[in-house]
């Protein structure tokens, strides 16, 4: 898919907001114990068959006898049905909770307001295709997040969590989410808590990692350029990933790969050179002095995207047979006669 400058910026901002939503849900349960107990981010839960499941956020309620998990999605595209079917698996995550097992687990899929249309259509299709009762049952809900101003004029903008479809069995949460406007995310999240971490489990767009590296990770020196290894960059970046990612070898590889891809993209943009040793990079200090870094990198990425598209050629258009005949079109009836 081609990437234009606007879309590049939008995806960068959307990922940042997804991180903020993840922090907001944590903040919501920590500051409102009546809603339930915050159990953990990517907390290890298990099915009856001991299959391991790690939803983004796990909470429990009714004295830890019920579970409510949240799956936060940065971007939902062609894989929407996989996302939904994966979310469905969480209802079986009844073991591994603070009190051992819970009676049932409700699932909330949280996505951007831009993606809710796609999600709702996919759910509709899944219901038609499979007649799966899960998507219509109490215990599955879709929420959206959006930034908007309140009705009163001159009031600050706020981030909101709003119900889209379905419902959970946590009555306190349901009451709050169905209040006027939905759940207003705390101002502290918008002003500073959103910078606690820089990542969620979803893979960020490459421009996000590039800007993260240039702003917060790559060292600033008086030298014109310096050589730095992927390992050093990874070590410096590691504290910005949520802590639950620390131990697992698989996740270390995933994080390292994200950083590597961003550095390789910088090499392709001819902004960074490959270093003298394996997995090292030569970074010019001028790279870190880009004033509007988002504009700069998005322009470069859009150009690369256009170039790749030219090399590949245009995607062939598949002419579809119209399901309904346009008015005034001659019919085949005279020919068949």
């Amino acid at each position, binding site marked *: 898919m081609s990437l234009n400058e606007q879309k590049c910026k939008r995806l*960068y*901002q959307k990922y*940042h*907001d997804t991180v903020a939503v993840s*922090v907001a849900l*944590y*903040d919501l349960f*920590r*500051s409102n114990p009546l809603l339930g107990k915050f159990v*953990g981010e990517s907390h290890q839960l298990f099915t009856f068959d001991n299959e391991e499941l790690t939803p983004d956020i796990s909470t429990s309620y009714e004295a830890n006898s019920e579970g409510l998990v949240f799956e936060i999605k940065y971007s939902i595209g062609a894989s929407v049905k996989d996302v939904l079917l994966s979310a469905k698996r969480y209802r079986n995550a009844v073991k591994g909770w603070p009190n051992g097992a819970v009676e049932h687990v409700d699932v909330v899929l949280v996505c951007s307001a831009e993606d809710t249309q796609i999600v709702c259509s996919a759910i509709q299709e899944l219901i038609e295709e499979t007649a799966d009762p899960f998507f219509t049952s109490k215990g599955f809900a879709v929420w959206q997040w959006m*930034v908007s*101003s309140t009705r009163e004029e*001159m009031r*600050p*903008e*706020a981030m909101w969590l709003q119900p889209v479809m379905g419902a959970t069995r946590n009555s306190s949460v349901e009451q709050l989410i169905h209040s006027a406007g939905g759940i207003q995310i705390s*101002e*502290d999240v*918008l*002003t*500073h*808590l*959103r*910078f*606690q*971490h820089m990542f969620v489990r979803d893979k960020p767009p490459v421009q996000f990692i590039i*800007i*993260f590296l*240039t*702003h*917060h*990770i790559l*060292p*600033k020196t*008086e030298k014109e350029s310096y050589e730095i290894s992927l390992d050093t960059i990874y070590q*410096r970046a590691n*504290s*910005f990933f949520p*802590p639950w990612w*620390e131990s697992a070898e698989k996740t270390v590889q995933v994080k390292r790969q994200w950083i590597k891809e961003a550095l390789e993209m910088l090499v392709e943009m001819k902004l960074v050179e490959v270093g003298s040793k394996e997995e090292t990079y030569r970074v010019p200090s001028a790279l*870190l*002095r*880009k*004033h*509007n*870094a*988002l504009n700069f990198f998005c322009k470069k990425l859009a150009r690369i995207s256009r170039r790749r598209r030219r090399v590949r050629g245009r995607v062939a258009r598949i002419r579809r047979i119209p399901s309904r005949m346009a008015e005034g079109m001659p019919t085949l009836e005279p020919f068949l006669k």
Partner: protein
Amino acid sequence: MVSIFDRLYMTPSKKPSLKAIVLLSDLTPDKLEALYSGRKRLKKYYFLQYSLLSDGLSKLTLQKEIRGKTVSGEVILEPNPSGYWLAYTNEPGYFVRHVVEPFLNGLYPDVSRVYFNYKQILKFLQALEIEYKGSSVLTSIAIKRQAKSGVGQKERGTLLLWEHGAERELEKQAERYRLWIDHIGFEIRDQSDLPILFGSMTGRGVARLRYGSFTEFSQKFLFLFVATVMKWKEFFSNRERKLVDGTVHLSPYRLRYPFELENRQIAEISHRLENIYSFSPIHESNPYFAASISDYVDGSSFGFSVLGDRVTITPLSKATPFALWKLANRIQAVIGECEVETVPQRLEAT
């Protein structure tokens, strides 16, 4: 130096005031030549001669071409192991404004300037009043002001508020206008109304002595001034994001205004910061603004947001007190001076 300045400024005659500039640096002044040589821009525009004097003092001879004329003068540096320098000169104000101050600005982040807003200066003057046992020390406040919803340049000229209610008038002005302090004049007299110290000070850490004993100026006035500087340095210190036993600790601070910030002011901040820092906006809509910022000279990085009447700065991977103080000043230089305070801690991430 003490006896010369004592003699010079106890005699009432027309002469340039003695200027003392407070600077923050953990280095010693003998590194100045190396710092100067490493900065192309400074080497291009300034000529520097450094010499060591007795008692740990150093002398700088600075020279710069300004509109075809050579402007030069001397500065004496007195370092302190607590992490600050005092730069003294009795050269004319033109030399200080156009040669010394820009030269010192160019030494950032190894040598950093200090920045005070009117609230901080008024607090300092209150401390001075206590030191001089209740004497009224304030004589005039020169401010630049702009209507709250205004954009672009500050109003031309300077508004002078004189003693007898100047502080109350300043508070009133702050309710109606966005304010920027230019300088504050002070006169300290003893109980018989005899003058002790006459001078002024600016928000950029420059104190001027027009009349009085240098010993008094140095031991009382500058001592208190440096104490205020060090207190604010402490405020901006140790704020970088920390990860301790898997827990993230943030130490944000905020600038709180007596009015809601408008879209035009936010756009102005965004534009100015974009010219000084590496800057990536996350939200540019009105009136919530959020961005990721990096001070590429110093290597510090911050999260930045504007919401309602507050600008919040969240120090991230590296955050020196110099960079944080500078950023607070840059923002106030655009939207006006305000209260600077720590964001109360509410929750910690696990």
